[in-house]
């Protein structure tokens, strides 16, 4: 029969049990964060809310739920899109799952929790209502930890400038789909110059008709070929890595 060593005092025993509990609790926490991540990757709209609640109940901080659960899931979505395994339909659906999870999480998140990588003002240029690509970019940027202000569609150069100033933006992301509207991007950059804030912001541009050459010609800092690449570029400009 196995006997406790006589020298093992009661306090030591309780410490071991405590430690075991901690390790066990840690495992449970990791499991539920994985569950959250998987809900996003598997586009599970029904499961995400419960999983987030479960995580919060276990005492995981809301910020950890966001960054170690949901953001990890979105990273995998980006990878799967790059690998050609996921399509626009999956990107949109993942965004909805994220939104569903945020419904539970957002009220618990404190603003100071979010270690902002930077503030991004994003929009589609004047005269252009196309926003599906821009919305995917905005969603991925948010889930990468940026503070994103989405100005929507048909945004005038003046509005871009005004919002950039108010929000103290460090990146401006400009989208246009059409050959007939892409020239408007140049007008936004001109307006940033005229307002004297061009050197305070990085400008990334994207949209169907654009090319790298065009982006360079109009004086943008970068051209994002697709949503995933755009996020990578913004990450390289992030304030905190």
């Amino acid at each position: 029969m196995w006997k406790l060593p006589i020298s093992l005092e009661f306090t030591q025993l309780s410490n071991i049990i405590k430690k075991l509990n901690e390790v066990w609790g840690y495992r449970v926490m990791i499991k539920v964060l994985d569950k959250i991540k998987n809900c996003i990757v598997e586009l599970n709209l029904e499961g995400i809310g419960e999983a987030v609640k479960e995580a919060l109940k276990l005492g995981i901080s809301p910020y950890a739920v966001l960054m170690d659960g949901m953001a990890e899931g979105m990273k995998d979505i980006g990878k799967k899109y790059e690998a050609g395994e996921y399509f626009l339909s999956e990107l949109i659906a993942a965004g909805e799952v994220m939104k569903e999870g945020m419904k539970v999480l957002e009220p618990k998140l404190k603003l100071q929790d979010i270690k902002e990588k930077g503030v991004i003002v994003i929009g589609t240029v004047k005269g252009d209502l196309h926003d599906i690509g821009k919305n995917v970019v905005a969603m991925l940027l948010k889930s990468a930890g940026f503070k994103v202000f989405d100005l929507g569609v048909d945004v005038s150069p003046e509005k871009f400038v005004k919002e950039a100033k108010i929000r103290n933006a460090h990146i401006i992301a400009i989208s246009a789909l059409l050959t007939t509207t892409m020239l408007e991007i140049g007008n936004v950059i001109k307006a940033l110059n005229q307002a004297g804030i061009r050197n305070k912001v990085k400008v990334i541009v994207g949209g169907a008709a654009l090319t790298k050459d065009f982006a360079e010609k109009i004086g943008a800092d970068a051209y994002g070929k697709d949503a995933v690449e755009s996020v990578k570029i913004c990450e390289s400009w992030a304030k905190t890595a």
Partner: protein
Amino acid sequence: MAKMTPRERVMTALNHEEPDRVPIDIGGGSSTSILIEEYEKLKKYLGISRETKILNKAFRIARLDEDVMQRLGSDCRPLISNPPVRWKPPPSKPETFTDIWGIVWEKVYYNKDCYYWEVAHNPLAKASIEDLENYPWPDPLDPGFTIGLAEEAKTLYEETDYAIMADSGFKSFWEIGYMLRGFKQMLLDLINNPEFVTALMSKLLEINLAATGRFLDAVGRYIQIFRTGDDLATQERLLMPLETYRKLLKPVYKRFFEFIKSKTKAKIFYHSCGNIVDLIDDLVEIGVDIINPVQVSAMGDTKKLKARFGEKVVFWGGIDTQHVLPRGSIEDVRNEVYRRIRDLAPNGGFVLAAVHNIQPDVPPQNILAMVEAAQKFGVYPLKI
């Protein structure tokens, strides 16, 4: 080679043989025409002063005049269904209109004189499967659609020698579907509510079959090309996984194309913007003869495209209108035409057209340079 009539030229190319020259389409249909403002610029450049007629209201496309199409060497002529007589558009707010499906469009100006009609309201955004039964669908058997159409087609067939491109107005599933539902919602439905997609597609199939049946009974014997199309890709790849297309959409198109083939000998023309390389085999399998617009800025090397699919499908389009036509020089346009003819025209199977409707940012000189180069480099046997 003896000079062919435009219809012979097009049909020879569609049968994958070499005609006397590469056929040209400008103005034949609602993805190969010219926007109203651009057409007015072109007419001014050609010294023609005449009121512009409309081919498609929502897309703001001009119906090109006969003398202009002759000047451009276009081998195709459009035949489209007429407006309904039992349906009147409901009252709309200023700067908007409601179409026959109940979709609301609004004017969006992209500069002070030019605008597009963009979808402003999706009437089925919140609908359930049950709601589809009570929705005020268009009446596919409205006699207005085909009034006078058989005579028009007969005249075009007997008194001209152009290839006739027919558009029944009832040919879209995915696009009409997402305009009714909302693009984002429809993409979500593919994953979260596929039953709704199937129910909506079935309803659209019922309507499109009825209207197209009536249309083809009137004109089926006169036409050479039947236009269909739904955008299914972004510039990178398909909008959805191929398996999703196969499960939810392909059966609907298959039934529709079989029905068309049972009513006419016309070739089936399928339009989808974007990179549809991964879809071509499936399209061919269910009866598509022609793909348009061959968005060269998205589909990769056109030479490889021809090598891989050239025996199975006709390429219709191919002249870049995202970069070359609006921003290129006349020399750039000539080089583009030369390159696409070199890549796509050997052994026939190619009809040259701009990738999509020519927008107001294209200099009229570039349109003329395109058709002149096509007539120069497109002569068979090809010397390039």
